[in-house]
C-alpha cells in the first residue's frame, strides 16, 4: 500500500537573502486529496510548487514527499513520482512532435519502447488528445498545448500531480475538459491557481496564501464562499457565486 503524502513544515524561502517569499509555510496533504492553493499574484504559490519538486534548493525548513526529504540526493526518486505541469505550456514542450514529447519521460526512465508507446496512448486518451499524437508542437493552439503538457506528465504515471495555473488562456470548452481530466486523476493533486471557479470544481480543500504565509486551510466550499476572507487577501468570490446572496451552485 502506498503512502503518498506531502509534508511541509516551517518552510522559509527567498530568491534573495533576507527577503523571504515564503515565511514559515506548513501544510500536509494525503493520498487522493485534491488541494487548491489560492492567493493573489505574488503570494508564493508557484514558488511553493517548485520547491516541492526540488527546483529551488536553498530553503529552510522541511519538505518531505512520501517521507523522503527533498534534497539533491533524492531528487531523481521524488521527480519520478511527481508530475509537474508548468504555468507556461510552451516551456514544457520542447520536442518536435506531441508523441516525442509525451514519450520523453518514459524513455528517460528506461522503459522499453512498447511500454513507452502504451503510456503515450494512455496519456493521450486520458486527456482526449489522441488527434494530436503526430502533430508538431509549434502547430498547436494554446488549449492543445495545455492538453499536450498534461499528457507529458501523465505518461510518467505520477503519484502526485502538481499544476501551476492550469486554466490560464483556456477557452470554456478546453477549461471544462481540463476539469474533467483533473477530476478523473485519482491520486493526490495540488493545484495552484487564482481561478477560484476551477478550484471549486476540482478541489475538496483550499489553502489560502497571502504574502508568503498560509492564512487559512480548510474545505474549499467553506473558504471559497467566505467573501470577507477572500477580499481581505486580494481575491474575490468565484464568478459562479458573485451576485448571489449565498450558497453554492450545483455542478
Amino acid at each position, binding site marked *: 500500500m502506498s503512502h503518498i503524502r506531502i509534508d511541509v513544515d516551517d518552510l522559509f524561502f527567498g530568491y534573495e537573502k533576507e527577503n523571504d517569499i515564503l515565511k514559515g509555510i506548513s501544510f500536509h496533504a494525503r493520498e487522493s486529496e485534491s488541494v487548491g492553493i489560492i492567493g493573489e499574484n505574488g503570494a508564493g504559490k508557484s514558488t511553493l510548487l*517548485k520547491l516541492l*519538486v526540488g*527546483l529551488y534548493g536553498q530553503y529552510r525548513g522541511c519538505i518531505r514527499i512520501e517521507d523522503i526529504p527533498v534534497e539533491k540526493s533524492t531528487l*531523481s526518486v521524488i*521527480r*519520478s513520482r*511527481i508530475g*509537474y505541469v*508548468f504555468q*507556461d505550456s*510552451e*516551456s*514544457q514542450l*520542447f520536442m*518536435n*512532435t506531441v508523441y*516525442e514529447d509525451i514519450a*520523453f*519521460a518514459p*524513455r*528517460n*526512465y*528506461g522503459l*522499453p*519502447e512498447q511500454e513507452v508507446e502504451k503510456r503515450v496512448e494512455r496519456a493521450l486518451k486520458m486527456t482526449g488528445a489522441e488527434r494530436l499524437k503526430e502533430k*508538431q508542437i*509549434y502547430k498547436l493552439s494554446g488549449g492543445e498545448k495545455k492538453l499536450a503538457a498534461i499528457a*507529458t*506528465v501523465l505518461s*510518467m504515471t505520477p503519484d502526485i500531480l502538481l499544476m501551476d495555473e492550469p486554466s490560464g488562456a483556456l477557452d470554456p470548452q478546453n477549461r471544462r475538459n481540463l476539469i474533467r481530466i483533473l477530476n478523473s486523476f485519482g491520486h493526490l493533486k495540488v493545484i495552484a491557481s487564482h481561478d477560484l471557479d476551477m478550484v471549486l470544481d476540482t478541489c475538496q480543500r483550499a489553502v489560502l496564501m497571502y504574502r508568503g504565509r498560509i492564512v487559512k486551510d480548510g474545505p474549499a466550499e467553506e473558504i471559497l464562499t467566505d467573501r470577507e476572507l477572500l477580499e481581505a487577501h486580494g481575491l474575490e468570490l468565484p464568478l459562479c457565486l458573485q451576485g448571489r446572496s449565498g450558497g453554492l451552485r450545483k455542478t
Partner: protein
Amino acid sequence: MKGIDGAVYEIHGMAALAARDKWINRIHPLVKLLLTLGYIGAVVSFSRYDIIGLIGLAVYPVAGFLLGDLSLKEGCRRMRFVLPLVCLTGLPNLFLDRRQVLFWGVKVGAGLFSMLTLAGKGVLTVFASYILIATTSLDKLCYALRLLHVPRALVTQFMLTYRYVTVLLEEAGRMVQAYTLRAPGQKGIRFKVWGSLTGLLLLRGMDRAENVYQSMLLRGWGTDYGYQKGRVPLRVWDILYFLFWAGIIAVFSLCPVLPILGDLIGGILI
C-alpha cells in the same frame, strides 16, 4: 518580424524533415554521421586542381537527395547564406595563383581551377551536412556523438544551444511584434532602444530557457542519451549501407574513376 518568424519556422521545418519516416531517416545515426565525416574528409583531401576527380564524389549528395526525397531547390534555399560564402572562399585564388596550365590545348589560369575546386568542395560538404541534418533528428545525432565518445558536456551544450536558439528567436519575435504594434509607420527598430531590447531579450530568453531545462529535469532527463539505445538498434541494413558508401567514397577518392571511364568510353568510340 517576418524574418524572425521565418527563421523559427525553418528550424521547425528542418526538424520535421528529420522526423519523417523515410528509408534513409531510419538508417542508424552513427552510420550517417561517420559517412558524412568520412565524405567531408575525402572531399577536402582532393588536390586543389583536381576538379574532375571531385565531380565523381558528387554521387554521394546526389544519391542522398534522391533517397531522402529531399528537394534540391529547398536545400539551396535553406543553405542560401552558406553557399555563396563557400563559393567565394576560392575567389582570391583567381588573383594569387597566376600560373598557366594547358586545358584541352588552351592556356588557362591555374587560379581558375583552384577557385572552382574550392567552391566545389564547399558546395559538396555543405550538401553532405545538409543531408545529414535533414535525415537525422538532433536527439539521434547527439546519441551518435555520444557513441563516438564525444564528451557528455559538449554534446549537452550542443543540444541545449539548439533548443536555446529557438527559444531566443521566439522571444525576439514577440518583442519585435510588441514594438512594431506600438510604433506604427516606423521602419525597423530605432537605434536608441536596441540596448534595452537586447538586454531584455537576453533576460527573457534565459528565463524561458531555464523553464525548458527545468521541465526536462522534471521528466527524468539525466544529461545523457542512453535512453536511445534500445530505440536505435544497429541493423544489417545499416552495416551494408555503410560498407557500400564507404566503398564508393574510397574508390572515387583513390582512383581517377572519371578519367578511366572517359578513356574507356573514348576507346570504345574509337
